[in-house]
């Protein structure tokens, strides 16, 4: 049995320390995902708390029909998408997109201290990729992250995004192709 499912079942049955175990295991990856989704660390931290609170509230109704992580990330994805749909967030996002122009975000980087060239290149590439990721449509961003980084199946991502596996396949590929085209040496789509 999935270790996290075992912990969740123990928590459901009254073992409070099992909830702490789930937090220790998943809070970090969840924060990383949510930070990429909402592009703001403080908001991502709030959403991590909210996601775990919902797990806490729903413990008595939990049944292990899927991996615990699938369930947790589905909650987190819903929270992130709701957050991104808030009007003030949309205004920020639109400003970000307008600043980015038609082809994506500006890749200008802040002045950095002098450092070895290879490291500087890697930082620049990472920052550029992160900026491109942030500029993707939110569902593409979620689908690609959940698949490529978290290792979820298309079926699991489809449940998180309330869509079909075929749609997930298209979302993942569009996101991946956009990011590939923007990498050094990549062809612009």
């Amino acid at each position: 049995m999935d270790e996290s499912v075992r912990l969740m079942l123990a928590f459901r049955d009254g073992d409070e320390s099992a909830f702490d175990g789930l937090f220790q295991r998943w809070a970090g990856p969840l924060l990383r995902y949510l930070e990429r989704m909402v592009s703001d660390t403080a908001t991502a931290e709030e959403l991590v708390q909210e996601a775990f609170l919902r797990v806490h509230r729903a413990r008595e109704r939990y049944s292990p029909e899927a991996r615990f992580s699938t369930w947790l990330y589905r909650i987190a994805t819903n929270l992130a998408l709701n957050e991104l749909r808030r009007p003030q967030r949309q205004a920020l996002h639109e400003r970000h997109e307008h600043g980015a122009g038609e082809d994506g975000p500006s890749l200008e980087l802040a002045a950095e201290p002098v450092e070895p060239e290879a490291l500087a290149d890697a930082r620049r590439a990472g920052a550029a990729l992160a900026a491109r990721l942030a500029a993707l449509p939110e569902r593409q961003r979620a689908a690609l992250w959940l698949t490529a980084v978290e290792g979820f199946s298309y079926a699991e991502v489809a449940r998180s995004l309330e869509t079909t596996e075929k749609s997930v396949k298209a979302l993942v590929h569009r996101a991946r192709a956009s990011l590939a085209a923007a990498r050094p040496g990549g062809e612009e789509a």
Partner: protein
Amino acid sequence: MAHEPDDRLRSEEDLSALLDGELDAEREAELRAALAHSPALAARLEALRAVDAGLRALPAPPLPADLHARLRARAAVEAAPSGAARAAPARRAPRRFRSAPALAAAAVAAALALVLLLSRPVDELPEERVAEAPPAPAPVPDAPVAPAPPDAAPLATAPPDAAPLAPAPPQPERLAEVDLATASDEEIALAMDWELLQEIELLERLDLLEAMAELEARGRG
């Protein structure tokens, strides 16, 4: 060999699906054979694979040391006896009419209001009223706790200066002065305080409709 656009798209998407381990065995074998003979296709696959590697290498934000404590504190507040009320989405309990005559009057008035509302062209409605029904929020069907987004639009009440739905009675009688046993439906409706109707929220209107149905059933029975 020339490919139709759909074929090309399918091949492109299948490259991603190959990376994700989502192809069936037959298609995977077909694609791997194509990759072996096409450096361009192989380079394309590598470009896609490099994206994944880049994403995995992105730095992760540090987990704040007090995040767990903050979460525990919030969970404790919710678990406290009064926590349930705090945690539950705020929803006002609908007002209840205390007496049968008041219920009957309200039901009839609500019915008339609905008839008047529905009989008017939409473009005659006051703008605030047309906008009153907020768009349905994005469904969260299988989230374990279906959350009302904290900023979800509350059920709108009529703004104080909204035009009434029906022509205001010139000198409405007070409801208490109307003999409900003998008054016509229209007289009862006119006696209703239209401001009260405007304050009634959607759920309460539904309550009125239920009450109407109940009265109708009683009338038949």
